[in-house]
């Protein structure tokens, strides 16, 4: 009965969607704003990756919000899980040597790869979030392979905070000294398609990368801790 009603309701909604989607022809959307970014993004931001220039410059404020959301989730998750921490030490079965060694071997490589992704965010696909996620995956590997090894909570918190503060600091610097706008790209743009280009974008992405990496690692840490 409930499913019938649900289906009926969804059909009504779908009907509405079809009506409106007819006005949005697939593959030929009107890209007024987007086209301008493509046309002028290189001059205005100095980033080869237009998506990055949108994410960090044109819509940098969104990204500030975005890292905040992640921050909220990390803190919130900690708050939710911390209230009832039953510290039951269970016997931890250590992993096999192969796994252990492999993890230890791969860990720095993955970190490096993550760093690469976020440092080159303005040049290639990817960026702070993606890089951060890769960094966090390194920690997942450690948790899986090297049971009992934990990241330092203080350390991750500090990195997290510093990442956020750097982002805001750069934004405020833009407001105070740069182009008199919050988050304005006040550093020299450099030459397109080189590593040291696009002004503040790489710095921001590095901050984000660290922040996201530590946050996601922290989240995983909390979840694992709780499940133990």
């Amino acid at each position, binding site marked *: 009965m409930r499913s019938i009603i649900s289906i009926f309701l969804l059909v009504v909604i779908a009907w509405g969607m079809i009506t409106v989607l007819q006005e949005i022809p697939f593959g030929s959307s009107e890209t007024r704003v987007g086209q301008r970014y493509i046309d002028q993004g290189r001059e205005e931001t100095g980033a080869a*990756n237009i998506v990055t220039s949108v994410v960090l410059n044109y819509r940098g404020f969104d990204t500030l919000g975005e890292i905040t959301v992640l921050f909220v989730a990390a803190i919130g998750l900690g708050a939710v899980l911390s209230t009832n921490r039953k510290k039951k030490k269970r016997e931890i079965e250590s992993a096999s040597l192969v796994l252990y060694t492999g993890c230890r071997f791969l860990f720095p490589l993955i970190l490096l790869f993550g760093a690469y992704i976020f440092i080159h965010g303005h040049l290639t696909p990817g960026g702070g979030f993606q890089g951060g996620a890769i960094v966090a995956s390194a920690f997942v590997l450690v948790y899986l392979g090297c049971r009992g090894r934990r990241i330092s909570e203080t350390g991750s918190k500090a990195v997290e905070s510093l990442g956020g503060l750097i982002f805001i600091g750069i934004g405020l610097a833009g407001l105070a000294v740069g182009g008199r706008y919050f988050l304005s790209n006040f550093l020299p743009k450099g030459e*397109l398609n080189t590593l040291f280009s696009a002004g503040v974008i790489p710095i921001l992405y590095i901050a984000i990368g660290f922040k996201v990496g530590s946050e996601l690692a922290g989240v995983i840490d909390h979840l694992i801790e709780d499940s133990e």
Partner: protein
Amino acid sequence: MDIQGVIHFMQNYTYYIGAFGLIFIGLFIMLVKRNLIKVILGLSILETGVNLFLVSVGYISKGTAPIFSNASIEGKSMVDPVPQALVLTAIVIGVAVLALALSLAVRLYQHYGTLDLRQIREQRW
């Protein structure tokens, strides 16, 4: 809308159909499932559908990724970068919500010993 229109629509809007298919599946799961984890899964599917929809909105036929990886690339046939940026944000938000939902589910299970939402009804009228 006649049947021809529907067929035309199906042919031209495959991505939309996929995206909205996911959205409706997600909603349907949330409407009828009683297990909290399944509901969260539904939510996740719903969000995926939305993200897919956002990306498809910005698609331009035969467009390339909006990256000037070398100087020779023309900006004419690039897809719209804005939806991609939006999706990036939306994904992160989705992850955040999902993580929080799962952590709450853990705690809820500790309290109730069940994840059946019909039985988790202490807070009502």
